[in-house]
């Protein structure tokens, strides 16, 4: 029995050693990284696989930290790197010896150099893009939900402003909708309270496009909005959950399953550069079941159009 146990352990050890290593560039610890948890669940839902998933934390805002994490992944002998952000994917592409990667990009992967085109990426990375160009439609929804709104404060950051398809179309749409925009730029979370105090007087509504600052300063923004409840249009259901208003969101629920499937396909030997980049197929209008105090109710038309409740 002892010999058998030793043999089984050795076989198991050999199996462990021989299983391919997949590195996930996450944040914090594995049990406190919700993105990692969801990815791992999606991977497990694809069926029992013979691979070893390794969580490598790195500050997504620091390219150097991402580079180091990629280096650690290479040293660990990873055959695949999962990059939950476009910055992480870029760090993988910068590393000459890095293995293929799969990513989820919240910005346009073609503009970031992660792919040559959505149909033919042609790089070492395959992924899904949840990049969003619904700013105009969100303004329209804000207008439809709150017809009396004429002045809208828009929280932007430097990255958003740098996008060629961001400001100009928004301003054009605002003009067509008869809205006046107040662009409020914040690149640090610390600057948000001052920014919100500054906008308190003029804005009649808030529009929070999907930016880095709105993602990182989610909690601070929600607190500020609660202090000064105004009609608010969010770009994600998570933001809506923490404050009032409504949201026009892309259905990104497919992303984790898609990443898991992409991971398995790349591990099976499929060239990542030949896999087209998937995009969300549905848009949802999300509302809170219970409006927070002070937040005005959207119009009944919009309420009737809502297909997502948080």
């Amino acid at each position, binding site marked *: 029995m002892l010999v058998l146990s030793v043999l089984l352990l050795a076989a198991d050890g050999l199996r462990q050693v021989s299983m391919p290593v997949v590195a996930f560039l996450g944040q914090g610890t594995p049990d406190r990284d919700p993105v990692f948890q969801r990815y791992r669940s999606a991977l497990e839902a694809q069926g029992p696989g013979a691979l070893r998933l390794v969580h490598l934390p790195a500050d997504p805002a620091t390219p150097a930290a991402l580079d180091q994490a990629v280096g650690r992944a290479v040293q660990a002998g990873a055959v695949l790197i999962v990059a939950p952000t476009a910055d992480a994917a870029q760090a993988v592409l910068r590393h000459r010896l890095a293995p293929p990667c799969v990513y989820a990009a919240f910005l346009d992967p073609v503009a970031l150099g992660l792919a040559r085109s959505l149909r033919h990426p042609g790089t070492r990375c395959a992924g899904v893009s949840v990049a969003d160009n619904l700013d105009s439609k969100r303004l329209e929804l804000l207008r439809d939900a709150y017809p009396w709104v004429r002045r809208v404060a828009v929280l932007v950051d430097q990255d958003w402003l740098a996008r060629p398809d961001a400001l100009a179309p928004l301003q054009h749409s605002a003009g067509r909708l008869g809205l006046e925009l107040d662009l409020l730029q914040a690149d640090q979370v610390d600057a948000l309270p001052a920014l919100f105090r500054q906008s308190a007087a003029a804005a009649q509504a808030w529009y929070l496009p999907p930016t880095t600052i709105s993602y990182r300063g989610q909690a601070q923004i929600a607190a500020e909005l609660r202090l000064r409840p105004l009609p608010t249009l969010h770009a994600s259901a998570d933001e809506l959950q923490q404050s009032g208003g409504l949201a026009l969101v892309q259905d990104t629920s497919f992303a984790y399953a898609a990443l898991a499937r992409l991971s398995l396909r790349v591990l099976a030997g499929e060239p990542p550069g030949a896999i087209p980049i998937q995009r969300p197929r549905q848009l949802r209008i999300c509302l809170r079941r219970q409006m927070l105090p002070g937040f005005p109710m959207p119009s009944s038309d919009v309420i009737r*159009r809502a*297909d997502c409740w948080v």
Partner: protein
Amino acid sequence: MPIAGSEPGPQPDARNRLEPAREPSGRLIRRFALPLALLSLGLLLATGLVEGYLAYRQTLALLARQQAVQAEAARAEIEQYLQTLETAVSQVQRLPWGRPGFQASERRIELQRLLALHPAILELRDLDAQGQIRLRVSRTELDVWQGARYSAQDEAPPASPAWFEEPFFDTEGVPNVAFHLAGPDASGGSTRALIHLGFLTQMSSGLRFAGQGQIQVVDQSLRLLAHPDPTLVLRQPRLESWEPLRQLQASPQGRQALQGLNLEQKPALISAQPLARPPWLILVEQPTSVALAPAWDTLQRLLLLLALGALLALAVARWAARRMASPIAQLRAATAQLAQGDFDVQLPPPGPDEVGALAADFGLMASQLQRSYAELEQRVQQRTLELQQKRDEAERANSAKTRFLATASHDLRQPMHAIGLLVGVLRAELPAGPMQGLGGRIHQAVQAMESMFGSLLDISKLDAGAVQVQQEEFALQALWQRLDATLAPLAAAKGLNWTLRPSPHWLRSDPVLLERILANLCSNAIRYTDQGGVLVAARPWQGGLRLQVIDSGRGIAAADRERAFDEFVRLEPQGGSEGLGLGLAIVRRSAELLGMRVQLRSRPGRGSCFELQVPAAACLAARPEPATDAQPAGGLSGSFVLVLDDEAANREALAALLQQWGCLVAQAADADAALLELDRHLRTPDLLVTDLRLGPGPDGLQALQALRERCGGSLPALLLTAELVSSQALPAQVLLLHKPAGPQRLRAALLALLAPQD
């Protein structure tokens, strides 16, 4: 089962064994069981293959029906969904637009509601009769509607008023299709709905069946519109060269199921169902490994059953063949055993069939064989016993004869020897006249008896193997001289010519034995020749010599030439010749001892030629002639002879004869008396004549030894005995003479002993 009624047979004898038969090249099991098993296996295999093929075909047909049903279900679902969209749009179209409360803004709201209700709709356009947009409601773009501060964007009217437009792929590669629905009123307006065909992918994913079956949608241009793998749709593969699709397009109503490679290059079972409106094709596929799993399971079970059946067939065939072959094999083993002479065979029990009858007959045959063998063995033993008895009797008779001859010749030799000596003495004392003649006849009779006893003694010695050949080199001429000395007087006495041709040859052989042979032949020649003569010569012959004794005597008939050499055969009528008929027998045996052959040529009345063939190995190169034996001056006169014999008669007779010859004689009965006698004389004896047996004390040779020691030198001795003594065992300067020995021989021997030694 041992043979009934048989006794334990005799042990197998090597003489009775036969060579075992070869191992059979073909065994019954191979010849019968194997073909039977192969036939069964072949039948099983054929049945299995046919069953398997039929099951496979049935499975394919069943799968085709199943897939057809699935495809039909998918078609119905897709058509129903499209119909639902049409219905929804139609319902909005039927509202009383233009009336109060049903203005453009309400229309917008309704269209937005449609978007909310039907996620597949990306955009709805309300078009007037000229195709101008009256209202556009979009999920991603700003709505365009009249009645607000927008202006309709001019867009090109659709290329053709087809109910369903040709599907197209947007900038992200997602397939879209638009359908037009004419308005209910006569204004000619219509509604255009842009459908995101991703819903088909969702639907196809939801339409998976059997766990791994999937549904795809292909448009009339063979472009992939929907697939459970959205990335495959985004690739926009060209399907014109996809073989299963081409075949399915060609098949009537796409009902058949094909085996081929799917878009992921994996074997799959594919069937198709056309969609009427729009004219798309719905493909239903299952991986072959899953689709044909039941068939493979059936095949595996079949193969397993086949294998089991084959093993069973082999086992049964082998068992049956063994059952059939076993008694035959036992019979064969029994046959081999019988061939080895072992009759204790195990036969198979007799059965009701032919093999049982064969076993019974075999058993009978084996019993018969065993009995015959036993009888034969018994007879052989009996005959062997008889032969042994006869051989023993013959040996006993031969031994008795030998002992008789030895005993008789020894016991009778003593008195004969004494008679011969006394007759010699008597003749010397008899006066001339008739008494002298009488003495002469007595002397001849005694000589004849001595000759016969000598022959008996010789043949006894030859029978007993006591004669040993003493090889030495000698001149034939010396032997000639001795023969001449002995036999010339005999020939002269009969008035015959005696010719002995001188010979320079030297031989290596036994001179005594050779002299004896030639002496016999010459004496026979003289005896059986009445007139003419006897010639003795040595002629070269094949490297050796032929010693010939030729006479002009009576000759021997051809019929008697061979038996003349037999013992106790006398060719002359009884009483017509002297002797016991042993001479030629002695000659032949002695010649054989010397390695020579005796040949006889003879013609009755013309004489005979006895030829002794001396082989080349016995012939030596010629050498100078040896000196003739020197005779002691004055013969025996004055010699001091000591006579030693325990028989007083012999002793005194011999003493008298010696005294007659002028010898000084001393007598003794034993060794001690001889030593005492020696002390009584001042001179040592010149010669000792002694018998071998001197009673219970030391024998003659021991006495000689003692006397030689006393005399301090060599003392020649003549051993005069009736015993069979080999001359090889004698000490130096001792001559052997067997009793009875006539005075002449006695004198010659004494003279030889007293001759000066070189």
